[in-house]
């Protein structure tokens, strides 16, 4: 087992004036190289977790507890200035809308050059920018180095950001939905590019996505979030073959495979329990296997196998069920 690059311990974050935390006790170990996926539906806390790691929580959000350990230091204890130096050098980040992450008033070349000189202290980094653009397979890099973000397509803007990452060589790259909104062909190109960047630098990638197809293709380890908690973490093959948590099973049951069309899975019955906020398992209200104890007392991640953690009280009773059974779903031709 390789050492972890970054460890999130019991991270709890709440918005001011709200009693229920948006992240409650998130635990995550990011291995020192390779790809880790973080999946979950919108509002599950994926993006907030990554923003907490890099110290860019939105206004009103406060860390109530926990630690973010990187190379023995707790990033949460860093000053704003010190955290600014961590971003870009030790942790890089690329976002869903690459154009909005770039300065609209500067040429992309100048922005890459700034990132290069910021890292190396070299003032004349502009020449390096063309080289970097070539590396990220930007067509006509000599021309594009003088372009402004609005003159480039979304895919090209994402290449510019990747070029900046290539210059900065962070230990950890957090990619939050980096290809959402791009065409499937461009998406494949960008992910391949990120792959060669990862191999070249040996960095770790935390890929936040809702697309399990991308996870299956690129990630070694996957964590699943629901309602502000990690409900399962597993090696990717285990996650897709034998998910332990009913929520993960539901994700797997509702997958659509282009290479293998199947009937749509449908929930058996319409179960909606009334669950008081803040107590018990976050999925209990929707879970087809919930028992009263799931509602009344909380549940922690437990080891289910090598590298496989599941936060489900009924894990052992559910073992051996099919994915559809765990998800509480059936398939009927409509």
């Amino acid at each position, binding site marked *: 087992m390789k050492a972890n690059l970054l460890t999130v311990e019991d991270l709890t974050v709440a918005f001011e004036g709200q009693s229920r935390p948006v992240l409650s006790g998130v635990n995550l170990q990011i291995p020192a190289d390779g790809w880790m996926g973080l999946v979950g*539906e*919108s509002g599950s806390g994926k993006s907030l977790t990554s923003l907490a790691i890099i110290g860019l929580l939105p206004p009103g959000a406060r860390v109530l507890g926990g630690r973010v350990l990187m190379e023995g230091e707790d990033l949460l204890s860093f000053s704003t200035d010190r955290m600014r130096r961590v971003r870009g050098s030790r942790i890089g980040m690329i976002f869903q809308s690459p154009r909005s992450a770039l300065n609209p008033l500067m040429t992309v070349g100048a922005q890459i050059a700034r990132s290069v000189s910021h890292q190396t202290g070299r003032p004349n980094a502009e020449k390096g920018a063309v080289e970097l653009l070539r590396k990220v397979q930007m*067509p006509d890099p000599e021309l594009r180095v003088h372009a402004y973000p609005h003159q480039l*397509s979304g*895919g*090209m803007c994402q290449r510019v950001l990747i070029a900046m990452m290539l210059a900065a060589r962070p230990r950890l790259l957090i990619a939050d939905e980096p290809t959402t909104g791009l*065409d*499937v*062909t*461009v*998406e*494949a*190109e960008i992910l*391949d590019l990120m792959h060669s960047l990862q191999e070249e630098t040996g960095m770790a990638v935390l890929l936040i996505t*809702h*697309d*399990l*197809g*991308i*996870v*299956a*293709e690129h990630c070694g380890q996957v964590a699943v979030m629901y309602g502000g908690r990690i409900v399962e973490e597993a090696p*990717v*093959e285990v996650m*897709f073959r034998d998910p332990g948590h009913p929520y993960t099973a*539901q*994700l797997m049951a*509702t*997958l*659509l*495979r*282009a*290479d293998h*069309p*199947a009937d*749509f*899975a*449908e929930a058996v019955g319409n179960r909606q329990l009334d669950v008081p906020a803040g107590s018990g398992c976050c999925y209990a209200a929707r879970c087809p296997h919930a028992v009263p104890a799931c509602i009344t007392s909380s549940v922690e991640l437990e080891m289910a196998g090598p590298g496989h953690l599941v936060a489900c009280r009924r894990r052992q009773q559910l073992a051996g069920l099919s994915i559809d059974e765990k998800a509480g779903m059936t398939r009927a031709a*409509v």
Partner: protein
Amino acid sequence: MKTPLLEVRDLTCEFRVRGRTVHALNGVSFGVEAGETVGLVGESGCGKSTLARCIVRLQRPTGGHLMFEGQDYVGWPERRIRRLRRDVQMVFQDPMTALNPSWTARRLIMEPLMLHRVPMREARLRHLLDEVELPAGILNRRPSELSGGQRQRVAIARAIGPSPRFVVLDEPTASVDMSIRAGLLRLLRKLQREEGLTYLFISHDLSTVRHIADRLLVMYLGKVVEEGAMESVFRKPSHVYTQVLLSSIPIPDPSVHRERLPMLGEPPSPTEVTTGCPFRPRCPQATEECKQPQPYYEVEPGHRAACRLAKPEGGRESLARVTTGVA
């Protein structure tokens, strides 16, 4: 030959943008038979949404023909088009922007019923709620108070309210989470069966399209480059663009490893008029021949592709050439 419910023939649509002409649709032809679902895929900017807007005549095409049950409505005045829209409806991509944010679900669903003078509206409203599987409790809520899946169900109820025959679905599941997506697709299929609907399903997500559509249209830069039965296109993709596209779909199974086919360069601009194959500048297999307009070659019955590589051995191309778009 049977008359298709909807027929699009040689449709062109041009826009003037900053003194330049954008050819959003560059001679699109196809037909949709009653009761089927035709999936339409292609990259952003290829003209998918322009085509959708032309079919419901939110956009006036520059040339060509649009026929519903054999009647050419391309030149009809707005008043006549409004009556046509009782039969030809559309569901938009993002219900958050397509639905008036200050209206309640009741008013939103009621509006098309009143516009099209549907009788017994209150009963129809209740029936529609049942049909799209929404509880009556949501009727007094506004779009912002509904979940993403509920919003899209309201949008679907609006579209099917006047009992249309043909519904254009423009990325109807793009704005919802994956756990909601399967439920919406199942609902659309149920409605199709119960209400006898015909769908044009537009999406950039081939995994979704494969699960809902009977036939597939592949567009590239304003042209249909391949068309055929879903299984036939997936089994034998014959235009190079279709092959690249299918090889790019991520498969949610860690045990599957695909070989992705490459493309050259970056997407060409729709302001440049290309004669010949629109994919030529990006195609690794393009030759001089591809600069000539490419006819459709029949791959299998009802499956055709406008690519020289789809040409049958022995030069049967003139026989396979299809001009009307009805395969």
